[in-house]
């Protein structure tokens, strides 16, 4: 189990992580969702010990990371966002190195290396230098290095960024396998599909704060059974927005170039919506999405999840 309480981290007066609390129980995947710069990686780095938190506490498998640092670290596996591999060495040599960092040696280490290589599908490539691997293969090896010592808790910081579909599937499958084996997992991503597929509980982060938390279902309910309609165009009469509210729409965002609304059963009332919006200006493009975490994020922040700002 991983328990984070009131974690704070500042850099030069800027609060990157602002009093966040959450927990991942045994056999559970807890997702941290948010755009780039939301504070997810900083939170992960504080939990793993790569950064020293300014305040708050972290417990891993019952061990406080400050007072019982070594035991906490022994119970934790980390898959950092940036690769941590010796490019000149083989996959096998990298695994020996990281295994030894967690106290594994001899036959135990050898058998675990072969197990994790199978888990990530690299058993036939183990003797090759890492620099010859594709980006996806490196990510899989990076993952394998973190699970060698069978950690009770695992931190995965955007493990699927920039990987091919095959590697991505390997990683997601391996993560679910760990969950079923009883590992508490914290998984950060800005891919909502991954979060919806993997996570039992989620926290949505923005600007260092948790702005929403709960199960996927609980979060969906916050959006309601409504669809997200995005209307791109050229709008001049924004004062007429009351007309949108009158037809039962919830306005998430409105500007001279884009209008985003939530509305129940968009397919049945699309004609009415278009007629109303045309009274504000010219509509060039319409996009309808089912309510999801993306809609919730837009509802809460007014921005898309994959915005870099």
């Amino acid at each position: 189990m991983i328990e984070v309480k009131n974690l704070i981290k500042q850099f030069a007066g800027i609060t990157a992580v602002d009093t966040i609390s959450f927990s991942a129980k045994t056999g559970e995947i807890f997702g941290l969702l948010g755009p780039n710069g939301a504070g997810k990686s900083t939170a992960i780095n504080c939990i793993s010990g790569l950064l020293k938190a300014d305040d708050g506490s972290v417990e891993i498998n019952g061990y406080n990371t400050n007072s019982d640092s070594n035991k906490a670290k022994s119970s934790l596996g980390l898959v950092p966002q940036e690769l941590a591999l010796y490019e000149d060495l083989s996959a096998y040599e990298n695994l020996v190195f990281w295994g030894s960092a967690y106290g594994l040696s001899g036959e135990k280490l050898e058998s675990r290396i072969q197990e994790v290589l199978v888990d990530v599908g690299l058993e036939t490539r183990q003797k090759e230098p890492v620099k010859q691997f594709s980006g996806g293969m490196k990510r899989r090896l990076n993952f394998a290095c973190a699970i060698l010592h069978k950690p009770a808790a695992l931190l995965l910081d955007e493990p699927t960024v920039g990987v091919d579909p095959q590697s991505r599937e390997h990683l997601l499958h391996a993560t679910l396998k760990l969950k079923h084996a009883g590992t508490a997992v914290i998984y950060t991503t800005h891919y909502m599909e991954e979060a919806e597929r993997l996570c039992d509980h989620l926290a949505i982060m923005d600007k260092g704060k948790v702005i929403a938390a709960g199960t996927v279902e609980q979060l969906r309910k916050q959006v309601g059974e409504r669809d997200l309609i995005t209307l791109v165009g050229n709008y001049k009469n924004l004062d007429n927005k009351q007309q949108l509210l009158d037809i039962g729409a919830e306005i998430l965002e409105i500007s001279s170039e884009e209008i985003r609304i939530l509305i129940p059963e968009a397919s049945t009332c699309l004609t009415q919506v278009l007629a109303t919006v045309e009274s504000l200006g010219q509509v060039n493009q319409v996009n309808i999405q089912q309510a999801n975490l993306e809609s919730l994020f837009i509802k809460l922040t007014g921005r898309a999840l994959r915005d870099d700002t």
Partner: protein
Amino acid sequence: MNSFFSYTVFRNTQTKLFKEKWQLSMWILIPVMMAGLFSLISGSDGNARPVGTLLVTDNDGSFLSQLFVGSFNQGPLAEMFILKAKTKEQAIKIMDKGEASVWLEIEKDFTQNFLDEKPTSIKLVKNPSQKILPQIAETMVGTLSDGGHYIQLLFSKELKQFKNLLTGKNISDADIALMTVQIKHTIDNLEDQLFPPQIKAEKQVVKTNKAPSKSFMLFMFPGIMFMALLFSSQGMAQDFWKDKTQGIISRLLSSPVGLNHYMIGKLSSSAIIFVFIAILLGGLGLILFNIEIKKIGVIILWLMLSGLALWSLMLFLSLLLPTEKSANLVTQGMVFPLMMLGGSFFPFDSMPKWMVVIGEKLPNGYLLQSFNSWFIKDQALSILLIPAITALTFIVLMFIINNSLFAKFARRR
């Protein structure tokens, strides 16, 4: 658990290093190549022998003018100058092109004027782009002129008789015998002034056990080894930055293993590389300079110790600097001044005194000078004891400092 991790760090570092064969080779080849070049420039015994061209235009062509020119063909001067007889026009062209060091032109009636005690001249033209050889030629011409002047003063009467001999006038055997006796008497009379026995010197041959004189390359040899240590210590200290940019060091912070075990692994790896370099260079010394085999053990230990001291220093700087690029620039920039001042480029014996004073205070200079006392000057091995203790203390102290810097280095973003 931690010792196995240190061993893994050690093994990985070795594997990486031996995969980069060029880097490893360069650490050894560059010093050896530089020493070879020094040897070619300086000659096998280290004494520089500049060789220049001396043009001679002998307009007189007499016995005396040839005797004068011939003095440049005697003794050490013969090794410095290649004499070439040229006409005036040819000599001017060659000098204009800067292809000769000196041009000597002897006037037409040189001998006649000398014997007649009239003024005579020798023209000396120097190449302005050269310094040493024209100066030597000028000094030689000056010395010969002075000599000629004194001969005129002391033997004017004999010279006149000698002139008659040269001009083919009939001289009797009695006159020649008289001329010889006069010269002898003049020398006898002047003996006290010419050779005053102011200090009576007694020559004694003292038997010593001193070894035959050592070659220049042997003097250079310890410097070459230290040059290799400087290159390799810089390269291996930089390896910390390579590991950092590959994300290894940051990730280690999340593992239970202490960072000091990583440091121990790196230290051990560096020690083995220094031993490897010492064996290679020691072997080379064994072949080229017939170094006594019993000395090899001490050479290996000393190079390992010195290498670790230099590695600690380079690592200290690398860990302090904010980026890989700056660390690389600064440590590489330090290598050459350390080599030049610390006796690796030039043996301390051939360096200016002020430079030696600075060089001996540098870590590499101090360790090299101490080593030379035993290796070159054949002092007792005990001479290395205090420097060895100093080096060990330095390594331990730097390990503690570097270990504390390393934690901050690992957390640096």
